[in-house]
């Protein structure tokens, strides 16, 4: 119905600015491809004569509302940017599988075989101090957790293994862990003691084990 009214419009566009939809496309392409935010003045300079970049921008801005990218104002210039709620996609996560350190494996093993066990006891058995990082790592992996406190002076916390731990290693309970004798007969010990070995030291461990020995000693019978 407004055809007559638009006809002269259309004719005029031959010498005047392209239709607004086209101007919007142009602004879209320029904002996309330009290395820095673009001012309206610059848009005007780059677009064909007679264009109204401000209006085109307003249309474009509306079009991108709620989309994955938005048309945003940066100072007195304009740019296309990722929608803030999708910022998390701008991370590329690379998962690397690494073997647990020897210290962590040993600490974990002691907890598994001696649980509930205090840090002091772990250190006693390993013969070296246990770094905070090692314990934290195991806690974070959710392979160990805090057990009940020991009823000894200072009421130290204890560590026990978790269900996750059992799941990971395919164990029903920590009791299923093989004892030394079994490990040896299964050939799982890397080194056998040389023939005619000296009597073992290791009295040091005895005290440490004392509390737990009841529960676990049968595991380690040799």
């Amino acid at each position, binding site marked *: 119905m407004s055809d007559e009214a638009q006809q002269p419009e259309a004719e005029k566009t031959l010498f005047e600015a392209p239709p607004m939809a086209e101007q919007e496309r142009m602004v879209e392409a320029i904002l996309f491809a330009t290395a820095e935010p673009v001012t309206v003045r610059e848009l005007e300079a780059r677009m064909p004569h007679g264009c109204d970049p401000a209006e085109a921008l307003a249309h474009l801005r509306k079009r991108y509302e709620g989309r994955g990218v938005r048309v945003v104002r940066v100072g007195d210039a304009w*740019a296309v940017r990722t929608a803030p709620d999708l910022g998390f996609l701008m991370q*590329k996560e690379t998962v690397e599988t690494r073997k*647990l350190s020897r210290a*962590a494996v040993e600490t974990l*093993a002691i907890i598994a*075989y001696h649980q509930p066990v205090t840090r002091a006891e772990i250190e006693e058995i390993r013969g070296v101090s246990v770094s905070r990082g090692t314990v934290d790592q195991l806690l974070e992996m959710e392979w160990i957790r805090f057990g009940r406190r020991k009823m000894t002076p200072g009421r130290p916390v204890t560590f026990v293994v978790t269900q996750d731990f059992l799941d990971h290693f395919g164990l029903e309970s920590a009791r299923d862990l093989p004892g030394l004798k079994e490990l040896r007969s299964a050939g799982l010990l890397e080194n056998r003691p040389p023939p005619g070995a000296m009597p073992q030291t290791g009295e040091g461990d005895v005290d440490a084990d004392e509390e737990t020995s009841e529960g676990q000693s049968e595991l380690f019978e040799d």
Partner: protein
Amino acid sequence: MTEEDRETTTEHLSVAERLASEALIVDVDGFEGPLDLLLTLSRTQKVDLRKISVLELARQYLTFVEQAKALRIELAADYLVMAAWLAFLKSRLLLPPDPAEEGPSGEELAAHLAFQLERLQAMRDAAAQLMARDQLGRDIFVRGLPETVERVRKVHYTATLLDLMQGYARIRTRDEFRPFVMDRDHVFTMEQALERMRGLIGFAGDWTDISGYMPEGWGDDPIRRRSATAATFAASLELAKEGKVEIRQSESFAPIQLRRRDPRE
């Protein structure tokens, strides 16, 4: 006879053709080898490359080479190789096929040359079409303001049951666990003997039996005695080498004696 034939056909080339081939010769550096030249020559036939007359093409090429010779223009070897081959092809094409002759027929050779020309032309057309496409950075543009993608490295630690058990065994058998250490209780090392003797030789102004330097408590057990004796003897030799002591033995199996060597001597 065929020689004459060729001569006559050359003679029969029109003036226009001669001028054309001369023009080509001036531009000889502009050609990328004989195949390129042949392709250019073939355009004068103004036909579909599939209907090209290879015989005619061979004539044109040979004319080109003749002209170049006449104008004393040096042609690269491969142009001359191609000329020789085309002369051979031409004779094959002109002569009736000889059933006794080995190798491909003239027609087969000509067909292959035509194929090569057609293929080269096709690739040139394809290249032109390719370059006529909208190109990135000229007609099409990438994102000008890329956002940095942060790399998050997540480390997933793992261990096997075997690691766990071996780790445990390692701790529990730590004291049994001396794969490379000899049982020192039965071994007296040369280092130990040296250390012991260094402290004693200062007093050995006179010849003393080496057995006097044996460590205490090592003489009873035969294994221990052997080790201590060997170590003490080795240490004595070491000290003699250093010039700290002198060693003597009156006869075989006689006691070995040593004494301090005076630095003055």
